[in-house]
Every structure is written in structure tokens, then in C-alpha cells.
């Protein structure tokens, strides 16, 4: 038997309404994007005022919010134009030794930022693509299909899969 506590609106106490009233207790379901969050409403939208008036609880402080997936960090803008130039020259001279991770460690930034600043030479990219193709050609049918499926699945997360 499923034993769950009754909804707070179903418990009778001294504060319960004495007259007929409406109990709003919808089942849990995924919210629809057609309802705009209050933050996204324009400043002059009349619904801002109405939501503020109907707000039950004040906004929670940061320590009571659900745990973040990744701890928020402060973005540092310590790299100058000279650093970026040096990054590019290192990448061009020895892409084998100065790959993205090595450059990120050297300049104390993220690998994503390194990718935005500089790219390896065409020759190097072609060489790495060839190596990847050689590895992929050794895959059996199950692995190939699984990889393709995963790629399609990820591509659908942007909205194309209709969810």
C-alpha cells in the first residue's frame, strides 16, 4: 500500500477556511514553456504586478537553493593580447606538444578559451582526422551503431526530438 502524507490543504486546523473554497493541488508534471517566467516578462507587462501580489513565499537565499551541478566560479580576464599571440605561435610551432590541455595549463585558462583563441594548422587537423578514421574503421557493427545513435540522441536534445 502506498502510504503518503495528505496534502497540507486537506488537513483541517484552526486556520482552515470555514466557507466553500477552491483547493489548487495540480499533479506534478513538466512545466510548459508557453508560460513565461516572471523574470522574462517585459517591465511594463501587467502580469508582473499580479504575480508579485500572488507570491506566497519570498525568494530563497542562495544556500537554500538546490545543489548546483558545477560549483559557480569567478571568471578571470587575466590574459592579454600578447598572451593570445604567444598561445597561437606555440600552437603553430609544435601542435603535438602544445595541445589545448597543455596550453590551458600553461596560461591558467580553460581549454574552451584556448579553442576560441587558436586552432591547430590544417595539416595537423587532417592528420588527427585521419587517425580518428583509422580507429573508427576498427569498430564492429554494434559499437558503430551505438555511437551513431548517441550522436542522433544528443542532436535531438536541442528540441528536434519533440520533447
Amino acid at each position, binding site marked *: 500500500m502506498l502510504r503518503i502524507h495528505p496534502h497540507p490543504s486537506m488537513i483541517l486546523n484552526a486556520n482552515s477556511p470555514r466557507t466553500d473554497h477552491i483547493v489548487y493541488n495540480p499533479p506534478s508534471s513538466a512545466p510548459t*514553456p*508557453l508560460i*513565461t517566467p*516572471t523574470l*522574462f516578462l517585459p517591465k511594463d507587462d501587467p502580469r508582473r504586478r499580479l504575480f508579485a501580489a500572488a507570491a506566497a513565499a519570498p525568494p530563497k537565499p542562495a544556500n537554500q*537553493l538546490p545543489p*548546483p*551541478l558545477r560549483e559557480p566560479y569567478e571568471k578571470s580576464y587575466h590574459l592579454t593580447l600578447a598572451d593570445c599571440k604567444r598561445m597561437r605561435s606555440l600552437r603553430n610551432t609544435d601542435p603535438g606538444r602544445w595541445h589545448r590541455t597543455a596550453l590551458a595549463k600553461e596560461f591558467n585558462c580553460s581549454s574552451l578559451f584556448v579553442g576560441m583563441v587558436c586552432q591547430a594548422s590544417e595539416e595537423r587537423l587532417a592528420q588527427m582526422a585521419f587517425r580518428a578514421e583509422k580507429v573508427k574503421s576498427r569498430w564492429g557493427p554494434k559499437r558503430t551503431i551505438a555511437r551513431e545513435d548517441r550522436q542522433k540522441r544528443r542532436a535531438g*536534445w536541442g*528540441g528536434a526530438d519533440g520533447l
Partner: protein
Amino acid sequence: MKRIRNLTSVNSLLRPVAAPAINASLSLLHSSASTVASAAAIPETPSPELQPQLLSTLPPSRNALASAKLPALHARLNLHPNYPIQTLARALVDPSADKNPRFTNQNLTTLGNTLTGYYAAEYLMVTYPRLPTEVLYAAVSAYVGNKALASLGREWGIESAFEPTADVDAGLLQFSRLAPGVDPKAALHRDPHAGSTLEHAMANLVRSVFAGVYLHEGLSATKQFFRQHVLSRKLDVDKLFDFTQPTRELSRLCAREGFEPPVARLLAETGRHSRHPVFVVGVYSGSELMGEGHGGSLDEARIRAAVNALKGWYLYSPPEKDLPSKTEESRDAKFKPAYIDPGEVIV
């Protein structure tokens, strides 16, 4: 759209052939036609190659009054008595069925295309002012594109003749089909008189009927017709989106609008080692929840949450929606200008 003050443009669309030697049955047809057509006083001498062949009786494919299907269609669509059967008959003739543009729905299609495209775009822009351009085009196409109008024509119960010969019923859609294996887009682009597809012909027919409503019944009747037949169809605008880097786009949106940077937080999970785990992640700006998404992995849930947050932004709909064409009907109508936003997020 300007109101048609004089009837000359209507004449050019609906003027029947005025041949020098008028046969008895032909003159009967002209006198029973609408007052608009009979106002065309000056008979035009057509060019030699488009000179219509004079017959002793009207062929069934051009004899609107002899068809039972046309009055049935007229009644089914609830058209006003001002809308003549002859216009309906003309709307059913595709350019691929007849070389002479005086008998085909070519001009009516152009007018109908302009009207339907305008009303659909206007409605979507006012209802969803923040919609990105690509999504807006997709939504307009979903309402008044070829596929949508072709299915509308099918729902109206319009049947097509297999070949546009002279003995087919005037109430059938007349068009000549392309040979099998021919690429329809290329063929239609090259020469619309050579042949057409059923979808294309049906869509053009629906557009021509719209044009007829505008010409014979007026502006408010056209809008009502559009609302009843096109806007009443269901379209999930939220299913038309396809983002490539939603987390990046959301980050740029928050930076542009001055919100706090987005942080993904885990709202609920079935457990890391569950057989088929479900994670529910919410994207927060400070302490405000922007969007929520669920998935089989933390990555999936985070990406879906960003997608839903972006959809929540783009699908904003203002409470008062005044269509600009409201001012066409009466100049004194109170019009509240539509909400205009800076545009889609540039990454």
C-alpha cells in the same frame, strides 16, 4: 493593405472573354455573371496565339452552371451569395490546365498568396513577438504553406480530375500532372504551364478561393474566413525550435539582458546508480528559476533545461494582442502597438 476603391483591378482578374461574335449561350452566361463582370464594357482583342476557340456550346469543364459540385462547394464553405459560382469555377483551373490566363486561377492565386501570407505573419508576430526569424517562417509555412493549404483543400472535399480534358466536371480541380520521376520543384520553377503536382494545385486553389472571398465579400469576411479555416488549426509553436548550443545561447541572453549568469541546479534524481535514472535539473538566474528539464543523464537534463528556458523567453505572448489590420476596418479603432523586442540572441 489598401482598400480597393475602384473595380478596375477586380475586372482584370475576372473579365470573361468578350469575343466579337457572341453566341446565344455565351451571352446568357455573361448576363447571369456578377455585376462586376458585366461592368467590363470594352471588349478586349486577345493576342493571336491566345485567341480562344469559339465553340457552339460551352464545354462542361468551363460550364460553371452545369456542375452540381460547385453549388455544393459554395454551400459547404458558407460563402455569401455575392460570391459567384463562376469565380469558384475559375479557381479550380490550374495554369497547367489552360494556356490562356483568362481562364486560370493564376492571378487569383497571387492575390490569395499575398493575403494568407500577410494574415498569418501578422498573427504570429503579434502573438509571439520574440520569435526568432527562422521559427517565424516555419510557423507561417505551417499555417499557410503548400502542405497546409493542400490538406485544407482536401478537407473541403475538393476532388481532382485525372486529366484536364474538356469533358470533365467544372467542379473538379483541373491540372495536368507531371510525369513520374520528374523533380516537382525544378519543373514548377521552369514552366508552370507544363504540369503541376496535386499538392501545389490544391494549395493554389485554396489561395484562389481566399482571393475570391476578399474580392466579392470584403475585408471583414476575409478575416473571419481566415480565422475559421486557418487559424483554427492547431500548431505547437514550441515544437518548432531546434537549438544547437542552448547553454551558450542562454548565457549570452542573460549577459545581454543583465540577468545573473545561469546556474544549473539538481532539483530531483532517482539516484546515480538507478537502472534508468531520471534527473530533473533547473536553470537558475540568482534565485529565480528560468527553465526546467529532465533527462537520463546530468548532461541531458542540463541541456533540456537550457532549451526550455530559451523557449520560455522566445514564446512570450503579450496579454493584449491588437492586429495591425484592425485599423483597416475602421479608422477610429483603438490600436495598441505590438511589443517589439531587441531580437534573437546572437552567440
